[in-house]
């Protein structure tokens, strides 16, 4: 299953990379005379209400999904890892401060929080990254804090301390390598969540701004037409589902390999 996941992720990655070479038209190329067409040999997935080729839009849509998924997790890692370490290793007031911020942010449901931010800031890719990133670091931060609290008390850390090693050295040389595996898993599993949040926001019309194609936005526009022009919502919806499944399967596989303790859990 993990291999299937990796294969799907690779395929999506290739789609995103080679989009201009494997599509017949740019995603925003309109042809008003060819609007509302069903799938055909010429338009594999049909066309939308302004005559844009749906296949091209679906392929280009993978770029947005991957960009959001990866960037959001980069933010998660960049913010969550140092804050988690600071809270776990330094403890005391630092720990208290970080954990209260975490509590405050988790008080809102994830999607509601993102919606609030988007309504306040307006649509757009940058704002989506802010809306998702503001929350995405929390799982990483919590994980790192909990792990470092535990690892600090481990015997190898005690031994290092006994040999006169400073806290910084312990963190860099001993804690970090031991934390790496669970963090990689958490980050990987955060990608589909970010992709889904973006899709949900765009579905509601406050995510990615057109004409940049995003699967969520395409489903949102197509869903109203689904009883007749079924293709408009179907293809991007399938892509969201497949991509999410790919990342989740891949993440699960990574966990099995990297984090033996979690196996079978």
């Amino acid at each position: 299953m993990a291999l299937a996941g990796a294969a799907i992720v690779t395929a999506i990655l290739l789609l995103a990379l080679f989009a201009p070479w494997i599509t017949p038209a740019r995603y925003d190329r309109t042809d008003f005379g060819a609007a509302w067409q069903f799938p055909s040999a010429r338009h594999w997935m049909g066309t939308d209400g302004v005559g844009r080729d749906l296949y091209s839009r679906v392929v280009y849509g993978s770029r947005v999904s991957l960009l959001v998924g990866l960037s959001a997790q980069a933010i998660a890692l960049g913010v969550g890892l140092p804050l988690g370490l600071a809270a776990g290793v330094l403890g005391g007031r630092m720990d208290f401060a970080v954990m209260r911020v975490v509590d405050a942010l988790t008080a809102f449901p994830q999607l509601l929080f993102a919606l609030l931010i988007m309504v306040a800031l307006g649509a757009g890719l940058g704002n989506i990254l802010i809306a998702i990133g503001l929350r995405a670091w929390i799982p990483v931060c919590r994980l790192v804090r909990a792990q470092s609290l535990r690892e600090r008390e481990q015997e190898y850390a005690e031994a290092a301390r006994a040999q006169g090693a400073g806290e910084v050295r312990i963190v860099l040389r001993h804690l970090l390598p031991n934390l790496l595996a669970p963090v990689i898993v958490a980050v990987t599993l955060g990608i589909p969540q970010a992709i889904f949040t973006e899709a949900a926001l765009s579905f509601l019309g406050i995510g990615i701004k057109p004409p940049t194609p995003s699967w969520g936005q395409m489903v949102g526009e197509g869903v109203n037409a689904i009883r007749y022009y079924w293709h408009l919502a179907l293809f991007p919806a399938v892509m969201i589902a497949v991509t999410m499944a790919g990342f989740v399967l891949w993440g699960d596989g990574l966990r099995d390999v990297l984090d033996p303790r979690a196996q079978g859990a």
Partner: protein
Amino acid sequence: MTQRLGRNGLLAIVSLGVACATLGIASNAPLGAAVVNSAGTSLPADAAPPSAQVLTLLGREGTYIDWSKTVQKSQWHPGLMSEPLVMQDINAEIKPLAAERWTISPDGRTWTFFLRKGLQWSDGTPLTSEDFEYTIKRIANPETGFDVAWYFAAIKGFKAANEGKAGLDEIGVIAVDPTTLQITTTEPTPYLPMLLSDLYVVPKHIVAKVGDPWSTSPATAVSGGPFKLASWERDRELVYEANPMYRGIRKPYLERVVYKIGRDETLFPAYLGGEIDAIPWIYEGSLSPSDIARIQTDPRLKSESYTWPYYQTWWIAFGGGETAFKDPRVRRAFAMAIDRTALIKSVWRGMAAPAYGMLPPGFHCADPGRLAGALPYNPDQAKRLLAEAGYPEGKGFPKYDLFLRAASPTVQTAGEAIQAMIKENLGIDLGVQNQERKLFMDRLNKYQLPIVMIPWEYDYYDASNFMNIYRTGGRHPWSSTEYDRLVNEGNSGMSDSQRCASYRRAEDILVRDPAAVFLWHPTVMQLWKPWVKGEILKRNKFGILGWQRPSKGDMVPSIYISRDKK
């Protein structure tokens, strides 16, 4: 609840008896004799029995039923529970309703309305001219926060009071005696009755006591109209029942109106599934282009559909302040870069007519043909105009978003079509942004949005209804003293030909300046199950469907359910 139904039932039997006695029909008369319902109306011969006189609809939910509190957040059928002075009939002509007759003073500024005798609220309190006076002052009161107060600005002192510059007592409305109401306007306003057809009177004795929430619960929602509120379960449904205390001229055939709450996307499936009797709404999104494609290919659905060109206009409006749109050449370039015909053929699948001016074809004073060539689709000239304005090939043009107000997916697609045309023909990158209704309206009213796509639909059959929007201080920041002068001249002219001449000259300015880029007039479609009958489903004198204002609900009393309903 049971008790009330019991009493209504009893009333029905008693009224039936009375009716039979008056008509000289023996009580053992064969089937087919006129049946009288609980509101005292004789049902037509082909009507289903009173117990089946239920109309089920589905739609959005508002915060109040009360239209003198809010329009934007109101429940969409104020005419069920309120009795305006006058109403618009199926030909959009003014007919007496609460007012039996009225007179106009020789200077055209003072109107005296004489109310029907015996009108009452559903709690038995008389409905008097004081209620009307109270309603107008409540709408004007800035504390009420009424969202389209400018609508009634023709009434003397109304605007000043609404802006807090004068007292409510200075407004030109007086209850002379319980059945006489006098309204004074600043200028002669021949279309005043049209405005008053949207004045949904509220019960003074209740509102003064209960405050704004009065219309949200059956306990306090006292009705002056043909129906009253039986129940309101938030997020689920509202039920109205015939009001036995109603003494006006719109006695209903229906016993109940059930209004389910649901999103637009659920309308068509609910209709197909037989859960609702009609989709009477005519705003975009109630039936999507794909629903319409399906209806057009299905003979049964096609026979249940009613379609007509609607008195609504969509346009692009430009914001105030220091934007690139300050330069009229930029606005002209935008107007000439949009191919309306292609847009209508693709996005709307032909269900719209191109708009060349503000007044929709067939509307009061409309003459769109003369404006078709004013700023036609011409990409080359559009490019030249843009270059003259200092943005050759769109270079250096600031980045703007085209804002849409809670747009349906189709309107969103239309926005993207315009985005594509602007990019293709002018080389300008325009964003498209859909915004929540309240936020959008707040920013629009503060003139903060640089470029928007927005509709206006008619409330009454008079050109003033459209033309007043663009007067200085109206919905959009564009301003022209000549336009204001011409519209005011049209508003107070007493002959129709004179008025139309002024409005057309004003419209010329609007189109040629241009203040707006006019885009399309929608062709709307309604669906009605074959068993729903009534005058409003007949074609009117314009050859279009009688029920032009479904959201007001004022014509629901003329609907009945025929025996065809299984």
